[in-house]
């Protein structure tokens, strides 16, 4: 015989296990996951409603720099074409900017360095939970966009990296035009006052200071303006987004 207390304890334990198993099963159910994903649009709209369009991310001083800035994800792309460019100090590298633009153009490093540059000391927040402070220098993305002139139907800026992982999937990322034209959204060729090192994305990486680290694609090769993200790779607007992370990474 079991008494009432035992029955109750076992009952609660079983209910707990069923609840957990249920949640785990729902994580694999496409419809349930779509429901959970609704929160992303709610968060995005609420955050945009609450915060001014041009709210600037906090900027710090040289005294606040992280002694060691972690290099995450790929730290040296295996791609032979990339390795060949790296050997020449990226002298032959050029950023291709095209897609839905009036004047597609390619920008060698020297051209990018001639554009007006912005230097900012900001906090990098990784989706994993860590934060590091670094200094970044490069032209604002809006300056580059003004040179190539996006067509009216262009809605997204898509960034392609020289960065195949072991499975061959390409790293790419995307922003809407509002975030792309934010004053702190820059194409950085310098970090902490030195040429951008390879582990941090040489020769050029994106900085989007109001979103999480995975939005800031490293090893940039090509930028395209598009009217839709669906036809690209997994169709969700980025390498990590295709694996279930939020496209809106402001939270």
């Amino acid at each position, binding site marked *: 015989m079991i008494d009432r207390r035992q029955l109750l304890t076992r009952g609660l334990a079983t209910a707990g296990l069923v609840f957990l198993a249920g949640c785990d099963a729902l994580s694999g159910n496409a419809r349930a996951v779509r429901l959970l994903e609704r929160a992303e649009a709610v968060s995005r709209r609420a955050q945009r409603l609450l915060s001014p369009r041009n709210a600037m991310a*906090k900027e710090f001083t040289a005294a606040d720099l992280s002694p060691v800035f972690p290099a995450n994800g790929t730290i040296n792309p295996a791609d032979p074409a990339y390795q060949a460019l790296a050997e020449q100090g990226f002298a032959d590298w050029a950023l291709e900017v095209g897609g839905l633009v009036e004047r597609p153009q390619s920008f060698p490093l020297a051209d990018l360095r001639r554009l007006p540059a912005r230097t900012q000391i900001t906090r990098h927040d990784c989706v994993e939970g860590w934060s590091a402070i670094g200094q970044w220098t490069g032209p604002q993305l809006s300056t580059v966009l003004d040179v190539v002139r996006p067509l009216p139907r262009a809605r997204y800026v898509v960034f392609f990296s020289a960065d195949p992982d072991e499975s061959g999937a390409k790293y790419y990322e995307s922003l809407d035009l509002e975030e792309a034209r934010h004053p702190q959204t820059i194409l950085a060729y310098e970090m902490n006052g030195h040429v951008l090192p390879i582990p941090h994305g040489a020769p050029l990486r994106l900085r989007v200071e109001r979103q999480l680290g995975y939005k800031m694609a490293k090893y940039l090769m090509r930028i395209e303006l598009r009217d839709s993200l669906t036809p690209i790779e997994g169709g969700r607007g980025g390498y990590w987004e295709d694996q279930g992370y939020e496209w809106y990474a402001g*939270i």
Partner: protein
Amino acid sequence: MCLPILVMSGLQIFNAHPALYWGERSDPDRALLSIDAVGSDDNEPIGLTTVFGRTFDTTGLLGVSTDAEGRVRSRGFPSWATLPGPQWLAMGRRWHFFAAWIFVLNGTLFAMYSLAGRHLWRDLLPTWRELRGLGESIVDHLRFRHPHKDAVGRYNGLQKIAYLGVIFGLGPLIVWTGLAMSPRMDAAFPWLSDVWGGRQSARTVHFTACVLFIGYVALHVVMVTATGLWNNLRSMLSGWYRLPPPKSGGTL
């Protein structure tokens, strides 16, 4: 429903970087708390938890634990405490933010209802007499001497302070420090994290508030069970509480 989801998906997110810091940055050598695994998964790894510079072997629970299939895993919190069970940060975030919206909406409605209605003013605000009697009340609770009959129908002073603390203290604190970790919110409202001394401080406060919340819930459950489970559950949901029948033979 929402709370276990928030706690467990929160632990899943915590596991992606199982360490806590103070300030804006997460310098590894300045962690307040860190959970690590030493050795590989195939070779009997050990779990180490370091709190304020003191290291404890927490193999089996923190750092290294066994998953639902019985395999040894190197991870912060064990799989039975996280949602989803396996290491899956993206899905943990989905659950967390979905449940967080429900928590915020529910909490706002409850707070508005309490402020507008009589529940707060009549039942929850402690009286002067109760505040003075707090010390005695603490001793009574520790000795498991609970009120009977007349006093049972109301919350006592200690209870009131605990409830108010959770509803108007811990609840808002946990939402605040959650928002302080959002880069976009931080850009618009830097004071969200500045008040705590930085984003990593806010993350630490968020985690600590969660631990306090679990402590509160555990204590609440212990108290409710100790003072008569079915009767308490009935009163929470319906408002009716059955008093024990008066002992016979007491009257002249």
